[in-house]
């Protein structure tokens, strides 16, 4: 049962390859490799390439001019701000969930593992709609919020909340398999020797999980910065006020400013590439 969370984490986590493959000897084996590489270039390589090609096709000067438009700059700022708020909160939540699930046995534990994965199964659009029907003027708390003059929907706060929803499982799903595999012997030893809970966490647990925690935070960050569907429902997309970078891309594209849309996209694509490079480096660090 404890591995269910691991199996439902197809992002791969930080797992080393257990065994080295063989050198391809036969022609059919080489053909399989060529086919896999060809399809990957076609389906994954070209979409990445087209972003940078179109972003820079009118030269670096136009690129810089597009990227430094006030609306795009503001969208970048809002996107970074959202990540700065959401990622630390979900890191704390992820650590709490992982500690609870891997260090204790209690009734409902299996159910909890399933429940915390719910945000991954829900369409981003549905996530946005649920918040609208909680905090919007049509929503459950709408009349109450209005009578107290509190506005949540179509503000930055709504973007924070819906981003918290969408990315809440990321850190936990990286930590649970690792903390399960490590067991709690080290922590029990520390407690027995007289350390308190916080000391045990900071001196024993945290050093053991730091790379998985960092990787979970990176994945969480990439998703927060790139979230489109959920944010587009709750933001109201007021230009220069509640437009995050992915929404700004759609706006520029609909305005037929293709170079501008690709210039804005290139910043997010770079973050995606950095995330993958970090994953590669962390994998080597953890298992070297």
């Amino acid at each position, binding site marked *: *049962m404890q*591995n*269910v969370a691991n199996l*439902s984490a*197809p992002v*791969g986590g930080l797992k080393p390859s257990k*065994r080295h*493959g063989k050198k*391809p000897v036969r022609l059919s*084996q080489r053909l399989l490799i060529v086919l*896999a590489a060809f399809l990957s270039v076609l*389906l*994954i390589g*070209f*979409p*990445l390439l087209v*972003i940078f090609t179109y972003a820079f096709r009118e030269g670096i000067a136009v690129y810089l001019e597009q990227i430094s438009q006030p609306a795009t700059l503001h969208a970048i700022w809002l996107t970074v701000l959202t990540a700065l708020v959401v990622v630390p909160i979900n890191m704390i*939540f992820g650590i*709490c969930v992982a*500690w609870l699930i891997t*260090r*204790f*046995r*209690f009734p409902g534990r299996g159910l909890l593992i*399933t*429940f915390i*994965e719910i*945000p991954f*199964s*829900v*369409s*981003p*659009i*549905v996530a946005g*709609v*649920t*918040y609208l*029907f*909680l905090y919007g003027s*049509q929503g459950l*708390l709408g009349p109450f919020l209005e009578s107290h003059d509190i506005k949540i929907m179509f503000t930055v706060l709504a973007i924070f909340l819906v981003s918290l*929803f969408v990315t809440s499982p990321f850190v936990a799903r990286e930590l649970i398999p690792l903390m399960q595999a490590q067991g*709690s012997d080290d*922590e*029990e030893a520390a407690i027995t020797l007289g350390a308190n*809970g916080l000391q045990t966490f900071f001196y024993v647990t945290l050093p053991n999980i730091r790379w998985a925690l960092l990787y979970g935070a990176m994945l969480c960050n*990439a998703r927060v*910065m*790139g979230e*489109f*569907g959920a944010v587009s*429902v709750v933001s109201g997309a007021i230009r220069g006020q509640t437009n995050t970078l*992915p929404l700004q*891309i*759609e706006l520029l*594209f609909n305005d037929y400013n293709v170079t501008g*849309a*690709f210039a804005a996209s290139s910043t997010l694509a770079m973050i*995606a590439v950095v995330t*993958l490079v970090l994953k590669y480096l962390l994998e080597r660090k953890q298992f070297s």
Partner: protein
Amino acid sequence: MSLFSKSSRRGILPGFSLTLGVTLLYFTLIVALPLLAMLYKSFNLGWSDFWDIVSSERAVATYRITISAALLATLLNALFGVLLAWVLVRYEFPGKRLLDAVVDLPFALPTAVAGLALVTIFSTNGWFGQYLEPLGIKIAYAPLGIALAMMFTSIPFVVRTVQPVLEDVATDVEEAARSLGATNWQIFASIIWPAIFPAFIAGCSLSFARSLGEFGAIVFISGNLPFETEVMSLLVFIRLDEYDYPAAAAIATVMLIIAFVMLFITNSIQAWQLKYAERS
């Protein structure tokens, strides 16, 4: 609160009530409460209004379009995923680590960026579109584009579920079979395929579930025509734009129910996969 009183028998590690409290509070506020609010809204419609909305012609067309595109995307990803997993586990070749890293790109790349890139490549004047459209293959602003966007955003699922299981397939059984005269194809069909099958099915169901809810990549490439290239998530968005909140709530509820059914199916498959792995 019997949950708390038992903590003394729960070993010596501290933090049970703290982490349980934080987890339950956060989950309730951030995940459960919004979901319940939407279900409540939908429930308040009454059954006949709800049914009228979700069985309207336009809504039914979106189910048909979404499900058929998701099936096609999942089928293609199943083939591509097994090929990639096989090549990454079984062979050593230059650029293998790069290929392994690139597979995760669709999860790291924002869906809106993916949609923008795909529509540019496959539009009439695009890198691929200019060669495909004279052949009569229309992808951008057509149903195939929806399947392509779904496929791109869920490429890693099958690879990443099959890969670790394939790594664990014991080579001694294979070598025994080979020494007894089995052909490569016989070895694959009767030893390897049964071993990776549960993981393969789990990966496919994750890919299918993700495709059903996809929005960001699809809005760029699909053209968004009612009855032709309109998916479920887009119809919800359009109803919101028209301030038709009951319709948005009802269709979003259908999507939520489908998501829960898929979550249940995926979890059952994964539980089966675990039992299967323990037995073999």
